[in-house]
């Protein structure tokens, strides 16, 4: 299946070396955005080119790769990126979080806990957490150098004053190792606590913006908040309709045009494993689960 005429994992060895150097620097300075010579990839900018370059730089022949988008292994973009590496690197792929050595993700962290030795690779559209507050890169770099994050605290305060809540629900800013303000990529804030002191190495790649950054294993990652408005994550009123999980991020599935709704795990592998283990939810065995293709019978 591997594509002939291209290097292992597509990138040439010099490019991989450049990327690994940038990644080493990123690991040495947790949360700091390291500029790198991002290459044009055969997938469009904004579709995971940063994550793909990072994965290509760290992938070895014995690695087992998992790719998810919105928590699912089966979304078209995840399928496409997994096919890309199956073609260019001929590595084993899996949808089991526990079996994977490298997990490339867009917008989610798997529900199953990560372990030492695993590498999470995040696709990042906008690495600069303050970009919407200050569009000029020359200015935001200075603010990082001075650790001057007043902008962001004022923004969060204004949210509370105006809406009664911090109105950021995904890509919720975090402080890494008490030093750098960092975008966790557009994961829901539900996933933010999983970043903190994770045993896995977490690498972030922004291809279009030409930056990589990292959170080494067991690094302190705190979501910004205030004493009287502590950080909190989303909660749902009901458990997953298919597997009964009450600890996972749920997607709303529209069942009909008469207001019918169902909430199911966004992490499709977590949901399927729970169903295999005999867990059931309120909508198990109905038509909807068959349509979702997540029932034990269809997988």
């Amino acid at each position: 299946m591997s594509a002939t005429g291209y290097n292992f994992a597509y990138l040439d060895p010099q490019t991989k070396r450049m990327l690994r150097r940038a990644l080493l620097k990123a690991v040495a300075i947790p949360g700091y955005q390291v500029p790198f010579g991002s290459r044009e990839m055969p997938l469009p900018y904004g579709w995971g080119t940063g994550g793909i370059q990072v994965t290509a730089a760290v992938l070895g022949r014995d690695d087992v790769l998992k790719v998810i988008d919105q928590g699912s292994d089966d979304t078209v973009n995840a399928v496409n990126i997994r096919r890309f590496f199956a073609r260019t690197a001929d590595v084993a792929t899996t949808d089991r979080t526990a079996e994977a050595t490298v997990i490339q993700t867009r917008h989610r962290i798997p529900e199953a806990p990560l372990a030492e030795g695993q590498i999470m690779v995040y696709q990042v559209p906008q690495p600069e957490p303050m970009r919407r507050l200050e569009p000029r890169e020359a200015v935001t770099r200075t603010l990082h150098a001075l650790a001057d994050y007043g902008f962001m605290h004022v923004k969060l305060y204004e949210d509370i004053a105006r809406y009664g809540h911090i109105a950021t629900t995904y890509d919720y800013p975090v402080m890494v190792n008490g030093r750098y303000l960092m975008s966790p990529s557009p994961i829901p804030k539900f996933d933010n606590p999983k970043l903190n002191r994770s045993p896995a190495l977490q690498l972030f790649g922004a291809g279009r913006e030409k930056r990589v950054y990292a959170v080494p294993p067991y690094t302190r990652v705190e979501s910004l908040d205030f004493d009287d408005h502590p950080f909190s994550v989303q909660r749902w009123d009901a458990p997953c309709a298919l597997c009964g999980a009450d600890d996972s991020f749920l997607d709303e599935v529209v069942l009909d045009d008469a207001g019918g709704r169902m909430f199911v795990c966004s992490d499709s592998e977590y949901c399927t494993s729970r169903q295999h283990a005999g867990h059931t939810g309120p909508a198990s065995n109905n038509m909807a689960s068959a349509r979702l293709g997540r029932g034990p019978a269809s997988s």
Partner: protein
Amino acid sequence: MYVAVKGGETAILNASALLAQARRGDPAVAEIDTAQIAGQLRLGVARVMAEGSLYDEELAALALKQAAGDQVEAIFLLRAYRTTLPRFGYTVPLDTARMAVRRRISATFKELPGGQVLGPTYDYTQRLLDFSLLAEGGAPDAVPGVEPLPDTLPRGTDLLGEEGLIEPELPLPGDPAPTDLSREPLGFPADRATRLQNLARGDEGFLLAMGYSTQRGYSHTHPFAGEIRMGEVALEVVPEELGFAIGIGGITVTECQMVNQFAGSASTPPQFTRGYGLAFGEAERKTMAMALVDRALRCAELGEDAASPAQQAEFVLSHSDNVEAGGFVQHLKLPHYVDFQSELELVRRMRAEAAQPQAAEEQTA
């Protein structure tokens, strides 16, 4: 539901098959070949080469064929191929004064050494649809003999230079090697060589709009087309083992030198300043727009206020690349339902809270 359902891989393969079918069109009509595209759609090919940053007519024609004529898609295809190519080295700087000129015009001097040469231009064609091209037109009439041009034509702007009326264009002290934007990230502030590199592969439509904006009052730079020339230039490299330059071929380029008014300052007497544009192939509109934008971006160096969009380097340079822009605008069609779910939950909660005081008021009333 399309994302949640298994079978994404089959869907992707089917979509590719449909695309191939749509690209080929009616099989009863002869298939277009890349030599026809390169030979008869040369301006389309030139744009793909320029913004794809790869001078290869055959591959650019292939990209256009594969992209069914979509230039930005073709540019993307060529860039993605280009990135896999090894880098052998760098040529010595092109000498456009030694260009084998096919077109050369100046709007600032009626007569100049070597003369005005219109060459193959649409400029004075009176844009009437030529219905004879609907049928096979056959070979066009032979061009009457023209005098051969001299090997070296001085640039129109050099004539001003002799009198010191235009700023000299000299290498920076130490002649530092320019940044290679295809290998290194764009940083700010960006020097002029880096900016020009960015503009040379920037989207023609974007540069046209930015350049146009400078003519409509958003940082007026009083431009004159000092000289536009198009033709073939030699490429030379200096192999380490030889130590002298050898020719390795030639490429077609278009160059535009814009002459702009500048009042002068305490340290500089009044003189004309320059804006510069250069692109692969016949690309006059692009290089003229590029020269306008280049001049506007020199505002800091010339002590001008940077009040307009075309003067703001971060704004212009960060948004000029159509492969970056096209990818990111279109990534919005990827699933975003996790982010959207997060927003939905917050909006519902805030709406519920907003409704509560109302309900309380109604009860007391």
